[in-house]
């Protein structure tokens, strides 16, 4: 056997695949993480509520129930270790009718059985104290103080970067087209004709995990995309303390009004099955539905929305996560059908996959000798005090050049993002890491400048700088046939 053969290939660099990669990076393994997109976290992991749930409203005995609580607990250690901002804000499920109140009382009991800290409150005064913005019509709440929020792609990027730091390889823009097996070795073929040889495959391809399974003849499940739409509101337009849920129905957890890590807030998601796995479009009907839903809990500020978007849940008829070796091939492990609470469960899913590799796939792991346990995130201007910022600028004048004025991002930060473990090669990659373009101007002022920085730092023609990779070009040929060029100036 030659040493071009990987021990493990993980298909899909969403939060699940990245968590698995980060977990396995502790060991002396030759691991590769594959994704068809130009960045990690380009699928469902970039468009969800970002809530760290507490097992509430999951069915007894399911993987969702166990892994959700285990996953939530694991963030206490991981977030400081990988420098991922995380806040346990607490969540409130709200009842406006007697029936809903009964449902919440029932769930309160379930939570006690699960050992999830919870508090049932039907005193208006206390409710008001917890969340002054809640409408008077809310008569009772079920409070989960440990529920929290994080930015889902922050987590995914940090997990992937940490894995890379410890020897895992990442191959982006590698779309798995088909898989062959010979002499106990899989060959994974990309749509561009590239090949990777590997002993064990982990299927973490999200919405496409059924398609990947079928590549080895496993037809045991189908993914049904269920779309959830959102509207994001401007910073400081509502000063929410808690994540607010209505009382869930059998159909869904309902429309949330929730804070983000950066002081914005959102309403959503609704839930509709859609035909297409690419169907992340929003619709007038959907947007109206979530505005109506959100208005039941708080008064939404008018005309303060800054963007709308949608994500697709990878649901299956099993109504639970599928984390097991394929019946077709014991060296092919599914981490599939990971719909909500998949973000919360991601670290626990990785733990479970590690167990399966040891128990069922015959791996004996030896610890990596030069393991680096922590990851430091980029230094952000917003976190520096005046003296620190002054000395940064003295070192490098690019710290004094603000590129994005809505979110206050300097040129120096963007330059660094172009040279990190996963180098930014398109404007959305920069946006997910540093937030230029996420503010109220949505990139109107800074996008052209960020394109210049990427062009200069990555040595790319200006017109080849895209929004999300692939053919998502922002500009085409030059006016007056001026000819193509790589930007290499100082004035952005």
């Amino acid at each position, binding site marked *: 056997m030659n040493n071009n053969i990987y021990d493990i290939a993980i298909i899909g660099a969403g939060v699940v695949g990245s968590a698995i990669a980060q977990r396995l990076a502790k060991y002396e393994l030759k691991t590769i993480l594959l994704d068809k997109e130009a960045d990690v976290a380009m699928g469902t992991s970039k468009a969800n509520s970002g809530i760290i749930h507490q097992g509430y409203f999951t069915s007894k005995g399911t993987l969702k129930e166990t892994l959700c609580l285990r996953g939530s607990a694991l963030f206490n250690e991981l977030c400081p270790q990988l420098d991922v901002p995380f806040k346990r804000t607490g969540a409130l499920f709200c009842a406006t009718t007697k029936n809903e109140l009964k449902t919440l009382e029932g769930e309160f009991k379930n939570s006690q059985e699960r050992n999830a800290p919870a508090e049932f409150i039907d005193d208006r005064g206390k409710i008001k104290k917890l969340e002054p913005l809640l409408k008077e019509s809310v008569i009772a709440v079920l409070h989960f103080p440990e529920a929290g929020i994080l930015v889902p792609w922050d987590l995914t990027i940090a997990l992937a970067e940490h894995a890379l730091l410890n020897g895992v390889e990442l191959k982006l823009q590698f779309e798995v087209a088909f898989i062959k097996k010979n002499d106990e070795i899989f060959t994974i073929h990309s749509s561009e004709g590239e090949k990777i040889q590997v002993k064990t495959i982990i299927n973490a391809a999200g919405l496409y995990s059924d398609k990947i399974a079928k590549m080895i003849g496993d037809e045991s499940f189908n993914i049904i995309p269920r779309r959830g739409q959102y*509207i*994001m509101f401007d910073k400081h337009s509502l000063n929410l303390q808690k994540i607010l849920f209505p009382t869930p129905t059998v159909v869904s957890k309902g429309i949330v009004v929730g804070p983000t890590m950066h002081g914005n807030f959102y309403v959503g998601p609704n839930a509709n099955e859609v035909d297409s796995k*690419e169907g*992340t*479009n*929003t*619709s*007038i009907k*959907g*947007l109206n539905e979530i505005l109506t839903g959100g208005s039941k809990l708080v008064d939404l500020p008018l*005309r303060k*929305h*800054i*963007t*709308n*978007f949608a994500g697709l849940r990878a649901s299956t008829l099993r109504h639970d996560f599928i984390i097991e070796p394929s019946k077709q091939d014991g060296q092919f492990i599914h981490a599939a059908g990971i719909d909500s609470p998949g973000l919360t469960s991601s670290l626990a899913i990785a733990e479970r996959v590690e167990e399966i590799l040891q128990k069922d796939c015959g791996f004996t792991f030896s610890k990596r000798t030069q393991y680096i346990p922590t990851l430091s995130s980029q230094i952000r201007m917003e976190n520096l005090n*005046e003296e620190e*910022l*002054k000395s940064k*600028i*003295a070192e490098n*004048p*690019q*710290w*004094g*050049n*603000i590129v994005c*004025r809505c979110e206050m991002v300097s040129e120096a930060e963007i330059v660094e993002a172009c040279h990190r473990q996963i180098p930014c090669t398109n404007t959305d990659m920069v946006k997910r890491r540093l937030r230029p373009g996420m503010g*109220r*101007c*949505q*990139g*109107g*002022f800074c*996008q*052209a400048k960020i394109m210049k920085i990427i062009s200069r730092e990555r040595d790319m023609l*200006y*017109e080849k700088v*895209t*929004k*999300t*990779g*692939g*053919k*998502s*070009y*922002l*500009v*085409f*040929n*030059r*006016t*007056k046939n*001026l000819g193509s060029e790589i930007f290499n100036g100082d*004035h952005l």
Partner: protein
Amino acid sequence: METDIVVIGGGPAGLAAGLAAQENGSEVIIIERDHELGGILQQCIHNGFGLKHFKEELTGPEYAQRFVDLVKDSPIHVMLNSIALSITPDHQVVVMNGKQGIVHIQAKAIILAMGCRERTRGAINIPGTRPAGIFPAGQAQRFINIEGYLPGHRVLILGSGDIGMIMARRCTLEGMKVLGVAEVLPYPSGLKRNQVQCLDDYGIPLYLRHTIIDIRGKERVEGATIAQIDEKWRPIPGTEKYFDCDTILFSVGLIPENEISVQAGISIARNGGPDVNEYLQTTLPGIFACGNVLQVHDLVDFVTEEAQHAGENAALYAQGKLDIPTPSPEQKITILPGENVGYVVPERIDGLQTEKIVKFTYRVKNPRSNIRTQLVSNGKVIYTRRHKFVLPSEMISIRAKLKPEDVEGEIIVNVIEKEQLVNIIERTMMEEN
């Protein structure tokens, strides 16, 4: 660092304000974030600027250059590539740049001239996918006029604001195909002359009372659907039109850029600009505002005029000569938009001891012809001016002579027909009795 006056923003407003303050005897520093002066005018390479101020037709950069040259020849100190991070009520400005790091400037007065930004697709909640190829019209203008790149081939434009219509022409001239302009209102929201010169002359269809109801495309825009809307702004089934386009431009309004004003504690008025008095002074003494940061202007010539006014007053203030009384609650005069008026600048009058001329600028909500502006106070009409027609796209500016004895409490600005006014007066009088 110390100075008399700090001007934040080096666009046409900041330049004119700075010059006026300097001519009135003040030491002035202009702070500009960009690497050159001129503001948004630098990318407006079309003509039509300066007809009022210079009595000749200039392009945006030419108009700006006239003021840039004057500033260069004056003792005004300009800080380029420098961003004002914050201001304080006692007139300190914190500035950052790559050369000096962070500088604190203590001034005697501050002039806010930060301009505005464009309203985005998300701000008006247009559904669909989110591929590349969706731009605010001003960004597309920057790509073409400053960077020299074409942002697409087949273009649909939402919003018939001036920038949108000007971009329809600009894209056409650069060889792009403009398929149409959709507008939710029953009339174009930009100037008439732009509709004629930028759309009609090029045969670009304008779809009034239409909006975009869907955007398609994964990586780059692949198409969009527009539909007619009813009175409640709901799309009317059966009126959908699909466009095979790769680019969508949004020209759906501008929003004054007031983050640092708000941080300092300045009150913001209903139009998004600082609440100012007749001296263009904000709710913080010694801090003045002018240009697009105060109200979105349709013509830069009005920006210049307004900015000069702010500059003169700031200079007087810095020299301790601007005698604005602090009105007692009974003396306070509030200006309120009335019939068919969206907003009025100023929002209040702080000093009316003797007869004086006050300038009011405002916009109407709906187009009307053969109509008049009436200022009403205490149930009485105190000023009238006729207009042949009024349009929401055109800022109206009047100078009214006000007498202290005529004004009490508030002044309502109405743009109405004569008969209507009688009713209002009758109603007010009836209410009083």
